[in-house]
C-alpha cells in the first residue's frame, strides 16, 4: 500500500486548514501570489514551458494534458480568451466548489498565470449557478485582488500586462459543463454543445475566437507549478499522472470526505479503506461495487481495488478517473434503483439536441421505471442493451458516439455495468411469468 500524501505534499488544499485561507491576508501570509510574481519575471512562453514539463492533466473529466491543450491556439489570431469551467455538476463530484470557496485567490492567481503565459486578453470565471457561496467568495476575492493590484489594469505594476477577470454565473444545467455548451451559455444562449469539429475551442471558441477552457482544479495547480517549477510537480505522483489529485469519496463508507492524494500512486483500496481517508465500509458491510470517476464512468468491483488512481491504468481497465468522484455502494444497495437513479439523471439533463441521446436516455429511464414498478416485460433487459447500443454502437469503452457530446453515451455506462454483473437483480424485478418466458425463449445472452 502506498503512503498517503503527508500534509506538506498537499498542493491545492493546503490552505483549507486556515480559517482565513480565502482572504487576501490569509493567502499572502501563506505564500499566495508568489507564482504570479515569478511568472512575471519569465518570458510568457517559458511559463507555458513549465506547465508542459509539469505534465499537468486536466482535472475536469477528460484528463487531457493542459500544456498541450494550451498549444492548440492558431498562431496570429487575437484576441484569445480564458474561460474557467466552474460548473461542477457530475454526480459524485465535489472538489471544485471547495476550491472556489476555500481558496478563491489560488484560482484567481492560476487564471492570471494562464493569461500571462498564453496572451489571453480576458478571463471569464463561470461558476455553477447553484453555488451562491462560491460566487460570493470569488466576488470578494476578486474585489480584493483588483484593489491590491493583482488583477485588472497593470498587474503588479506591469505597464504591459493588464487583464480583467469577469465573474460569471450559470443558472442550472449539467450540460453546460461540456466546454462548447459552456461557451454557448457564456454567450447568452441555451447551453447546447456545438457541432464538432472543431474539437477544441482553442481554435474557435468564445465569440469565434481562440479560447482556452480549463477546469477549476487544473488552474488551481498553476501557482504551485510556477513557484516550484514544473519538474518538482512532475516528480510527484506517477510518471504519466503527475502531481496530486483531489478525490471525493462518498456513499456507503465510514468517513466520506474530500482528499488530496498523490496522483497515480495511491490505489482505490487506499482511498476507500485507509482510515486516513474514507475508512472502509460501514460496520458489518461489504463492498458491492463503486463508481470510480463520476456518474458517467463504468462501475468497478472488488477486483479493481488495487488499481492505482492513474489515468492510463483506469482507462485500460475499462473505466475512467473522470472528475475524481468515487461513489461506493455496499451490499445493502439495490443496484437496479442505483442504476435508475444515474440514468434518470442523464435523461433529465439531456439538452435534446441529438436524437440518440434525447430519445435514448428517456427510453432507458422509462424502461427502468417500469421494471422497478414490477411491470417489466420479458424482453426489457435486452431492450435496454439494444437502446444502449443505438446510443453508443458496440457498447465499448471508450464509448463510440452517435452524438456531438458524451452525455448520451454516459447513460450507457451504468446500465452496461450493472446488467452484466447483476442481471439476476434486474430479473428479480420482472413479474414471475416474464422471467420464465425470458429463460425458456433463450432471450437472455
Amino acid at each position: 500500500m502506498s503512503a498517503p500524501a503527508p500534509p506538506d505534499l498537499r498542493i491545492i488544499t493546503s490552505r483549507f486548514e486556515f480559517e482565513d485561507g480565502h482572504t487576501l491576508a490569509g493567502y499572502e501570509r501563506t505564500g499566495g501570489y508568489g507564482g504570479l510574481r515569478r511568472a512575471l519575471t519569465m518570458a510568457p512562453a517559458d511559463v507555458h514551458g513549465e506547465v508542459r514539463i509539469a505534465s499537468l492533466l486536466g482535472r475536469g473529466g477528460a484528463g487531457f494534458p493542459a500544456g498541450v491543450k494550451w498549444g492548440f491556439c492558431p498562431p496570429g489570431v487575437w484576441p484569445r480568451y480564458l474561460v474557467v469551467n466552474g460548473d461542477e455538476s457530475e454526480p459524485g463530484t465535489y472538489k471544485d466548489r471547495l476550491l472556489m470557496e476555500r481558496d478563491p485567490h489560488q484560482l484567481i492567481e492560476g487564471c492570471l498565470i494562464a493569461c500571462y503565459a498564453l496572451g489571453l486578453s480576458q478571463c471569464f470565471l463561470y461558476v455553477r449557478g447553484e453555488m451562491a457561496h462560491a460566487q460570493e467568495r470569488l466576488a470578494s476575492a476578486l474585489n480584493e485582488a483588483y484593489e491590491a493590484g493583482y488583477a485588472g489594469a497593470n498587474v503588479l505594476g506591469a505597464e504591459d500586462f493588464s487583464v480583467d477577470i469577469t465573474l460569471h454565473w450559470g443558472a442550472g444545467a449539467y450540460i453546460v459543463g461540456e466546454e462548447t455548451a459552456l461557451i454557448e451559455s457564456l454567450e447568452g444562449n441555451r447551453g447546447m454543445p456545438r457541432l464538432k469539429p472543431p474539437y477544441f475551442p482553442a481554435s474557435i471558441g468564445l465569440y469565434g475566437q481562440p479560447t482556452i477552457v480549463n477546469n477549476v482544479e487544473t488552474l488551481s495547480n498553476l501557482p504551485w507549478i510556477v513557484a516550484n517549477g514544473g519538474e518538482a510537480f512532475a516528480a510527484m505522483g506517477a510518471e504519466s499522472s503527475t502531481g496530486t489529485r483531489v478525490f471525493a469519496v462518498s456513499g456507503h463508507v465510514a468517513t466520506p470526505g474530500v482528499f488530496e492524494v498523490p496522483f497515480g500512486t495511491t490505489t482505490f483500496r487506499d482511498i476507500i479503506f485507509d482510515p486516513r481517508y474514507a475508512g472502509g465500509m460501514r460496520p458489518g458491510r461489504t463492498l458491492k461495487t463503486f463508481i470510480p470517476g463520476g456518474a458517467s464512468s463504468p462501475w468497478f468491483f472488488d477486483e479493481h481495488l488495487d488499481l492505482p488512481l492513474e489515468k492510463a491504468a483506469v482507462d485500460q481497465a475499462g473505466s475512467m478517473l473522470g472528475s475524481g468522484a468515487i461513489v461506493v455502494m455496499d451490499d445493502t444497495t439495490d443496484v437496479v434503483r442505483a442504476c435508475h437513479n444515474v440514468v434518470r439523471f442523464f435523461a433529465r439533463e439531456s439538452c435534446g439536441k441529438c436524437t440518440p441521446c434525447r430519445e435514448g436516455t428517456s427510453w432507458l429511464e422509462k424502461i427502468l421505471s417500469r421494471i422497478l414498478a414490477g411491470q417489466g416485460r420479458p424482453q426489457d433487459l435486452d431492450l435496454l442493451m439494444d437502446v444502449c447500443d443505438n446510443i453508443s454502437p458496440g457498447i465499448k469503452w471508450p464509448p463510440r458516439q452517435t452524438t456531438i457530446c458524451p452525455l448520451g453515451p454516459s447513460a450507457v455506462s451504468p446500465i452496461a455495468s450493472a446488467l452484466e454483473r447483476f442481471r439476476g437483480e434486474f430479473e428479480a424485478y420482472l413479474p414471475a411469468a416474464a422471467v420464465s418466458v425470458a429463460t425458456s425463449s433463450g432471450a437472455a445472452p
Partner: protein
Amino acid sequence: MARLSPSSLAVAQEIISRYPVARSALIPLLHLAQEQDGHVTEEAMAHIAELVGVAPAEVMGTCSFYEMLKRAPVGEYMVNICNGISCHLLGSSELIHHAEATLGVKPGGTTDDGKITLEAVECIAACTEAPCLQVNYRYRNRVSITDFDRLVDDLRAGTAGVAPHGKLAMVRQHIGDDRRAGAAPPDGQGQPAWLARNPSDAEAGP
C-alpha cells in the same frame, strides 16, 4: 415591479460593461430580475432584451433552458432536496417522501401559505455530506428527518437566516474605474503587449 428598477438597472449596466458582447450578460441579468421580483417576469425579459439588444423571444429562449430561472412565482424559499446518486444511497428518497408528506406538495409544488416550494434536484456537489439539500441555494448537510422538520419550522417562522428566493451571492464583483483593464472585444487589437517580452518565443505557438 416588473421592469428593472433604477437600482437594479444600475447593477445591470455595471454587469453589462464587463462583457465585450452585451448578450453575454443575459444569464446574470435574468438572475438580477429574479432577485428583484422572486421570479423572472415577462416585462423584465423585455427590458433585458432592450438592454442587451436582442429580441424578447431570444431572452425567453435562454431563460427557459435553465432550471434556476423561474418564469412563474415560486415560494419565498426553494427547498431543493438532492437526489443525486450519493444522496440516493444515503436516504434521499426517504427524505423526499417525508418532505412531500410534511409539506403536502409534490416536487415542483408550493405550500398554500406561499412559503415553500419543494424540488427534488440533481447532484449539488456536497456528495460527502449526503443526504443534503439547499434552501435558496444555501447548503444544509447530512439532513435527518428531524433536521428537516426543524428547518421547515424555522422557514415558516422567518428565523432560518436565508434571504428570499432570487438572491444569490451577497457580494457582487465591483471593478473600480482606475483598476479596470477593459473588456476585450472579439474584433479588437492584435497580440497583447506583454507577449513581446520575449519576441522570439511569443508567436511560436505549439
